[in-house]
């Protein structure tokens, strides 16, 4: 049987395809909608009462300004996206800590942009000093488990499938000690069908022993957050899932330990060389980025320097924070966005095939507009459903007193919203984004997904020491869409790492199912495409992490399809 001859799969898919409600998005609506802001913040009235707390005491401990992240995932498998917010709180080991009682919070989506706090009943209120989170079905039981990274021991919550979780950290062996973990990804490193886990570690930081940094302003010394150069790097960790609920640390054996000088803050697992397995791309803070090429057997080769991914066009190691992957120029491979410190550009690494990267920031026109901002959250998504990937960046400085040092700088900063012109060039649409985009915030992690089920991508922004933003997409005249929930059978349950290619109206688009992107965050696993004015998708190809390839023909747009990996 041909690898793409899966008519049986097609029939099975049609039987299993679930359509979700399609609210008015302008599709087929002959009355042009009134001009309106692209996004509106719908936090008020949503039921989400989360407020991030840094626990800062004025002593300028670096961890307090680096968090936190957010996850969008369907923890109860009821078809909509729930929100998990990671909390800071009391910095462990800090004398004179404000003593606030805070935990991470989970909000269940009740529909109609109404959420209910279910943290206590779900049992996911980790009270560690939280950084990030990532989601995946690590035990293959059909529900999504949750991994939380902390300044301190990390936590693994295993989903029981009944709306509650249990702490599986100790049994799994993924606590990662008393280190400072940042972003993490679940992916199948060795192709055995189980999700492995890569955890970025930032720097070695001891609250009681930390150095203090000061700058002089008009003759007076003012305390400020230290540059990461002050602290030694902490090495990242790769855990292999044994498939029995336990993990083992294979960092060295797998070859992701060749460089010791990382300071990782962002990571994405993406098949950038197109050979069927997920490679690892790590955004390091003020150090060269890492590109670990997966050799297909669970081992990796450090191709950071030779790939062109370690440094920007000027040969500089930038202060990498958030990262995302996506095919921005429509050439069928995955490019990368990394966001950086002020006076550094956000940098677009264009994949020229086989994971050779070229810094395409300048010609893509995203460089200069980002110079004044410190980017954290970053994500590609087709925010207008026109068939190409747009870009959202959430900004916010790390220094609450930055204005004392640089009059042009501020702690709170607006987001950036860029629209792709279809050829990989971006127009700055932040103004059209509306107040929800332009309001200055001290933003950190971002997660993308269709929160209200209307077929377009919304964004949740986690803000430091503040409430989050719920950026609901309401762009007028938006295109049509198609989305896929993947169900692995030989592959991991949610098809993380699967590559989905669609063809419609003579166009081809490619996307990938990823866990853990942006900064400290996790976006919806549902694979979403904007298709412009196309009324049908002619062909859908799925290449699963197992190597299985499936073909489905003639699918309806403006709905979600559930695709199950064929078992040959």
């Amino acid at each position: 049987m041909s690898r793409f001859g899966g008519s049986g799969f097609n029939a099975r898919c049609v039987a299993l395809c679930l359509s979700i409600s399609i609210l008015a998005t302008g599709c087929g609506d002959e009355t042009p909608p009134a001009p309106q802001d692209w996004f509106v913040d719908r936090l008020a009235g949503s039921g989400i009462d989360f407020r991030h707390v840094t626990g800062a005491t004025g002593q300028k401990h670096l961890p307090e300004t680096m968090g936190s992240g957010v996850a969008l995932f369907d923890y109860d498998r009821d078809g909509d996206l729930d929100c998990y917010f990671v909390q800071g709180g009391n910095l462990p080991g800090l004398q004179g800590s404000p003593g606030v009682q805070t935990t991470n919070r989970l909000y269940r989506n009740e529909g109609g942009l109404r959420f209910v706090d279910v943290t206590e009943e779900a049992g996911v209120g980790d009270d560690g000093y939280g950084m990030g989170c990532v989601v995946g079905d690590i035990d293959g039981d059909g529900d999504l488990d949750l991994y939380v990274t902390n300044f301190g021991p990390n936590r693994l919550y295993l989903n029981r499938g009944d709306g509650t979780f249990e702490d599986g950290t100790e049994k799994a062996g993924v606590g990662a000690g008393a280190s400072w973990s940042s972003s993490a990804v679940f992916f199948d490193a060795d192709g055995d069908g189980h999700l492995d886990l890569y955890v970025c570690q930032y720097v070695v930081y001891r609250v009681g022993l930390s150095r203090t940094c000061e700058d002089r302003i008009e003759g007076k010394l003012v305390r400020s957050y230290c540059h990461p150069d002050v602290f030694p790097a902490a090495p990242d960790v790769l855990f292999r899932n044994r498939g029995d609920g336990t993990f083992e640390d294979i960092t060295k054996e797998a070859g992701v330990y060749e460089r010791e000088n990382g300071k990782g803050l962002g990571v994405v697992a993406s098949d950038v060389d197109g050979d069927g397995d997920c490679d690892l791309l790590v955004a390091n803070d003020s150090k060269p980025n890492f590109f670990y090429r997966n050799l297909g057997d669970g081992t990796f080769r450090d191709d950071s320097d030779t790939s062109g991914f370690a440094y920007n066009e000027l040969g500089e190691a930038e202060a990498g924070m958030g990262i995302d992957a996506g095919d921005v120029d429509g050439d069928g491979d995955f490019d990368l966005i990394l966001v950086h410190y002020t006076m550094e550009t956000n940098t677009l690494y264009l994949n020229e095939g086989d994971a050779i990267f070229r810094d395409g920031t300048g010609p893509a026109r995203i460089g200069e507009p980002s110079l004044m901002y410190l980017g954290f959250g970053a994500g590609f998504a087709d925010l207008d459903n026109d068939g190409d990937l747009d870009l959202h960046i959430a900004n916010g400085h790390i220094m609450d007193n930055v204005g004392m040092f640089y009059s042009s700088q501020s702690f709170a900063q607006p987001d950036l919203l860029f629209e792709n012109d279809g050829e990989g060039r971006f127009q700055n649409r932040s103004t059209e984004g509306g107040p929800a985009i332009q309001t200055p915030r001290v933003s950190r992690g971002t997660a993308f997904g269709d929160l209200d089920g209307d077929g377009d991508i919304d964004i949740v922004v986690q803000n430091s020491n503040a409430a989050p933003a719920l950026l609901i997409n309401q762009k007028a005249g938006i295109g049509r869409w198609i989305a896929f929930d993947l169900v692995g059978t030989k592959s991991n349950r949610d098809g993380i790492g699967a590559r989905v290619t669609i063809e419609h109206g003579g166009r081809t688009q490619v996307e990938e199912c990823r866990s853990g992107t942006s900064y400290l965050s996790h976006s919806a696993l549902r694979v979403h495409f904007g298709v412009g004015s196309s009324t049908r998708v002619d062909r859908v190809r799925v290449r699963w992490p197992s190597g299985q390839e499936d073909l489905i023909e003639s699918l309806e747009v403006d709905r979600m399809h559930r695709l199950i990996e064929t078992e040959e």
Partner: protein
Amino acid sequence: MACGDPSDEERSRARLHLDAGLTALRRQEVDEAIEELTAAIAIDPDLLEARYRLGLAHLTNKSDVPAAREALEAAIQVDPDHVPSLVKLGEIEFNLGEYESAREHLLHATSLDPGSFVGLMFLGKVFDRLQDWERAADAFLRAAEILPDRASARFWLGLIRTRQERWIEAAEALEAAIERERSHSSAYHQLSRVQRELGRAEAAERSTRIHALLQELTGDIRVRFERPELLQRRDAALELLELVPDAANVRLTLGDTYLQLAESAPTSGVKAQAIRKAEGAYLEAVTLNPDEVIARARLRLLYEQTGRPEEAEAMTAVLERLREESMARREEEDVR
């Protein structure tokens, strides 16, 4: 605000405010400068230099881009052919990602003054963003002709040729940049890629190594390195100097590293040796680049701290002379 054309007396008063503003700028008293320049404009709205200087004050000293832009746009309203304002406005627009309007202002500026190095550099970068590689290359070539000793135009030309995949021309331009600035990290980075494309594997490896070593020597100036890190930096600098012996600023970094090593030296003998090595590195840096003021300032400090007042005094005199020469050059450039 004055109504109608200002009288001669008003012009004189405006001129006085302008002069006071310029003096304040030289003293780095930016708030006072802005006040004086604003007062000058209020009396004589057509006082072009006041508007231009006000823009610079906002931009350079306060990083207040909207205010700078407003002042420069007003200057251009007074004189649409005022090249410095056109160039600076083009630069601002470039940095805001407004490439089309930047192109118009910079094209106008460089047509009025084909010798505007800065104008041509930004014009080249604007054409790069607009993916008009040929016109970008042309602008950088013209800039390179104006200031042939500067590395930057050659580097950017190399970058454009790389984008065009004109590898041999790219290599030539990048090598020319390195010839002018021996530790041009960005040029080595690009050159390594170009050399790989040209099949020059050994040369590419050398360029990659030089770039990596240069990167090892970068870091936040606030950071006080621990002794093991200092030893690593020393070794990187020494290896780099084997590869690029005439890189003055690497010798400066080596001197700084030795000085920091002296502070944490376990014995007085080791400390004295480290100070001697620092002095040697600084002296080599100034031999390679007689205008290297930082190395000279470090030497002065070192002489002062090691009880050599006559040498310190002599170095102070040299530094003063270099400072005056630099100020004269800057004023000349300002006039230009």
